[in-house]
């Protein structure tokens, strides 16, 4: 029984797998973190698990990609490359796997070709297995990534995204496989990406069987989610039908929307006479023993709603989006409307929008549209910029049918046909000048960035700069365990915290008193750092008199103000682009500002012809409904 190890090429891997008596396992730790812990599982925890995961003998460990690259810098403050370097030190044999969204890379919107190639080249230095998908199953969207992965000599794993419904036939998917093979050649692992955990075990087995009928040599990697609690059933069926690799993860951390427990998969398939190749069960058990005590520190990031959700078969939200969607509902105060959104509106929207695959970024479009349809009352009355782009075909052609005309009319007005004709279809995104971006970043940071920093910056410009500045200020924080980094309610007086910093130097920090200044404007936090007393001063937040100006405006008032050129924020969002300059002439309908909420971008357009008098908002501002954005002086 041969274990597959890092450094093996695709030809060798395929040969070993074809000869193997049994199946292989990918530990999808990244997907578990994303689906059940809002992507918060820290490098610190993964490093604890690294030695036993290394011994476990997986085909691969999925540890990067998806939304994790973004969350790494945004919420965990760890460099996504440093993470891979440190894990590699402890796991020399295990292949590292990523999940890449094709043209959308690890983000939510298409990137220029030269950025895609640059990013993949840098990540390919650390990542051995590249699972690549496109939410429209539009193969050209994945081509640049395919080429770079193959050029780097890494294992390419293109996906067919899977869903259910009358259009989602074996015939369709088998044809899709051919489309992929036409581009990649035969030296690939093929992934069936069942991100929602949809369909029955029988359906999963049938699909694997249908593909193998046509391509008997194909190595199929079945990926699922346990949202309905039945993923082991699908895994078993897929493996019995001939899938050679299946996904699961460590039971100490398994939840409801991510992967099922590895050991359950192994034990079940053993009864069916299938063996997990190269697997060391004791090491898998040990991993969970190491991880178990850490789980409590992540409780805050677990789903707002606990329990399996068999209704996923109706709403089809992918496991990776369940946690964040429920969180938005909880924070937005519409948790009570979830049955209506999930069981009525979302299925309806899916059918209306072409029954494509509900996965990033397509799932976010479906979700925000459904929420907006229910919350706003007027269905499709407030189309997001991303929905408009979808309708215009900017993400790729609709796989089965185009949405009905009335939706286009709602989105683009009575002249929608003209809009579609003029603006419709995919457009090549122009390459950007990467050297120029490097200089821009150098200016922002005040030092020359590394290539890796540039890669991170090109994907998430604002968040990357914030992260680099964070690191300058707070150091390499991955060394802190979740019990510290995610502590809620502060520390105890006299509590001491010990850790080794990035260079391996040990530190001890003892919590001292917290003291407010005489006038109450500041608070001093006293610490003993390595036995040296130090204090940090924090300015106390004061209730600002200015807060009155953000007094809540009704939707009607915001619209009326916009018609007078006083452009206000219509919903809670972040400002991601200011599209005009002060003094610039604008026409009604011209884009002024782009807002981002729930990862979706929405332009705010001028309601009037006029001149931009004042720009109030800045890129990166978090804005509330009614906040001033731009003032336009209407022309007489």
């Amino acid at each position: 029984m041969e274990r597959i190890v890092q450094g093996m090429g695709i030809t060798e891997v395929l040969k070993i797998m074809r000869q193997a008596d049994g199946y292989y396992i990918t530990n999808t730790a990244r997907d578990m973190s994303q689906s059940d812990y809002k992507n918060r599982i820290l490098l610190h925890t993964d490093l604890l698990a690294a030695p036993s995961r290394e011994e476990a003998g997986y085909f691969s460990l999925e540890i990067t990609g998806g939304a994790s690259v973004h969350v790494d810098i945004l919420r965990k403050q760890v460099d996504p490359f440093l993470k891979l370097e440190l894990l590699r030190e402890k796991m020399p044999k295990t292949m590292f796997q990523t999940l890449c969204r094709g043209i959308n890379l690890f983000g939510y919107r298409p990137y220029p070709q030269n950025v895609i190639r640059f990013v993949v080249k840098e990540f390919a230095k650390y990542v051995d297995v590249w699972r690549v998908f496109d939410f429209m199953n539009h193969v050209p969207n994945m081509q640049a990534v395919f080429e770079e992965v193959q050029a780097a000599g890494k294992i390419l794993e293109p996906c067919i995204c899977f869903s259910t419904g009358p259009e989602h036939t074996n015939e369709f998917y088998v044809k899709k496989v051919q489309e992929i093979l036409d581009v990649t050649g035969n030296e690939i692992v093929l992934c069936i990406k069942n991100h929602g955990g949809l369909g029955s075990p029988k359906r999963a087995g049938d699909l694997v069987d249908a593909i193998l009928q046509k391509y008997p040599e194909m190595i199929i990697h079945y990926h699922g989610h346990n949202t309905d609690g039945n993923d082991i059933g699908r895994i078993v069926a897929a493996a019995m039908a001939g899938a050679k690799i299946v996904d699961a993860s460590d039971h100490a951390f398994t939840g409801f929307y991510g992967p099922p427990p590895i050991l359950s998969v192994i034990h079940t398939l053993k009864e069916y006479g299938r063996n997990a190749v190269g697997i060391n069960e004791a090491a898998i058990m040990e991993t969970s023993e190491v991880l178990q005590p850490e789980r409590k520190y992540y409780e805050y990031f677990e789903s707002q709603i606990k329990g399996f959700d068999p209704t996923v078969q109706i709403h089809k939200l992918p496991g990776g989006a369940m946690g964040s969607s429920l969180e938005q509902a909880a924070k937005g105060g519409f948790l009570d409307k979830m049955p209506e959104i999930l069981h009525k509106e979302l299925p309806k929207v899916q059918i209306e929008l072409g029954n494509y695959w509900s996965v990033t970024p397509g799932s976010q479009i479906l979700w925000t549209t459904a929420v907006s349809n229910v919350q706003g009352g007027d269905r499709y009355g407030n189309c997001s910029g991303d929905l408009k782009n979808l309708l215009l075909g900017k993400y790729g052609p609709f796989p089965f049918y185009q949405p009905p005309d009335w939706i286009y009319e709602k989105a683009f007005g009575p002249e929608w046909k003209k809009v579609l004709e003029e603006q419709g279809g995919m457009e090549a995104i122009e390459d950007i000048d990467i050297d120029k971006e490097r200089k821009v970043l150098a200016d922002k940071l005040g030092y020359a960035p590394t290539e890796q920093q540039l890669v991170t910056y090109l994907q998430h410009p604002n968040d990357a700069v914030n992260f680099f500045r964070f690191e300058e200020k707070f150091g390499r924080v991955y060394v802190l365990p979740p019990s510290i980094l995610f502590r809620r309610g502060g520390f105890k007086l006299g509590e001491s915290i010990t850790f080794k910093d990035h260079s391996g130097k040990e530190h001890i920090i003892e919590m001292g008193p917290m003291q407010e200044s005489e006038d109450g404007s500041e608070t001093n936090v006293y610490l003993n750092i390595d036995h040296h007393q130090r204090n940090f001063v924090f300015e106390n937040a004061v209730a600002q008199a200015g807060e009155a100006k953000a007094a809540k405006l009704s939707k009607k008032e915001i619209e009326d103000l916009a018609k007078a050129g006083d452009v206000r924020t219509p919903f809670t969002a972040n400002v991601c682009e200011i599209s005009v300059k002060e003094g610039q002439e604008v026409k009604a309908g011209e884009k002024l500002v782009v807002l981002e909420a729930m990862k979706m971008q929405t332009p705010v357009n001028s309601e009037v012809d006029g001149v931009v008098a004042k720009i109030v908002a800045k890129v990166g501002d978090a804005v509330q409904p009614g906040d001033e954005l731009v003032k336009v002086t209407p022309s007489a």
Partner: protein
Amino acid sequence: MKKKILIANRGEIALRIIRAVQELGHIAVAIYETPDKDALHIRTADEAVWIGDGPRCDYLDIDKVIGVAKKAGVDAIHPGYGFLAENPDFAKACEHNGIIFIGPPSDVIQSLGDKVTARRIMKEAGIPMVPGTDNLSAGDHGLREAIDFADKYGYPVMLKATAGGGGRGIRRVENEKQMRAELPMARAEAKSAFNNDSVYLEKVVINPKHVEVQIIADKEGNTVHLGSRDCSIQRRNQKLVEIAPSLIQDKALVDKICETAVTAAKASHYVNAGTVEFLVDRDWNYYFMEINTRVQVEHTVTEMVTGIDIVRTQIKLALGKKLSFTQDDIHIRGYAVEMRINAEDPQNNFMPEGGKTVSVYRSPGGYGVRLDGFVYQGFTIPKVYDSLLVKMTVFGFSWNETVDRLLRCLNNFVITGPKTTIPYYVNLVQDPDFKRGDFDTSFIETHSHLINYEEQASEGNKLAHLIAEIHYKGENPYAV
């Protein structure tokens, strides 16, 4: 007999004097303006009297200080340095009111305070002087005198206000054209700053060493010197680092300078402690500059190498005692360096950091370390006074030992809240020229790289900062 002694000063020097008064078994009376209400000197003194809201006006108010002194029934007043210390009117007022002024008689302060008079006295005593003029005549006649002088001795020359001092009222003139422009301005400035428009000229000694001699004399004319100090390390004529004794290799020259200082003191009928300042040029010529008629900030270094308590001696002499030692009793041992730790940001042009609270104050200790400071943890530095926080004086048997100790002490000194000159000094004491003892008054200017230290926190401190923030906010604001 117990005497009551009022200290007409604030800050570290007030504390220094209070300590001496208390050691001698007398009663120390402090005075304070409102911004000093939390100052250590009023907590340490035996009595403290509030003299007004200030700032910097009540400490300078002769009538008020004398009034307080009389009401409190004090026998003597020690003026410290600055404020009223070198004001002959104050010394005179003390004399008129039957209060002992701890310092020279008012007429000595008067004549030495007038630079031209001082120069005349020294010239008569045969003390080497930087070539210079008497007070220039008024109007065009004065300009003619100035130009003639400069032509004879060569430019550059210094245009000095007769009543100036402490680095104020000085202009450097490079050529005749500049002289014509600067002279009327210098007069106007002197008039407004010192209410006296007299000015005179001196030849410029380029990049000299600043060497000074501590002298001390009793009323019977016994005058001794306590050796030399080098105060060349100055920033814009403000001393930062002072060393005793001078590091000039030629001991005979140093001895000669010290003897000259005694001659100068005697020529001016000096009584009590004072300092005779000299410039030493590159050819080892030395020139008299001035006599400071007060206790100097840097007197500590002399105390460290001689063992003589200068302030106690000042008090004893003022109370009528004779000098208890002769020149032969004075021996210089080892080296002492004083560094003025100021609440200033060296990287921001030494801007004062007043108004900030000292949140952590951890001072070095151990052998050879002396601290004369007045701040404590929790103390808010008043914005309205000078930025000196603490004088760190370090003693060592050899120069190298002293330098090593300086670095150790600076590294052990933790002051957070205001920025301080400590990190700058850390660079300074490691500078090869400093370690060699090779410096003159251009040192700070020619070693501008000393400003390049990183205020970068260590990795442990950075992480602690985040932990502090998590603690303060009750959650990690970057991870929610």
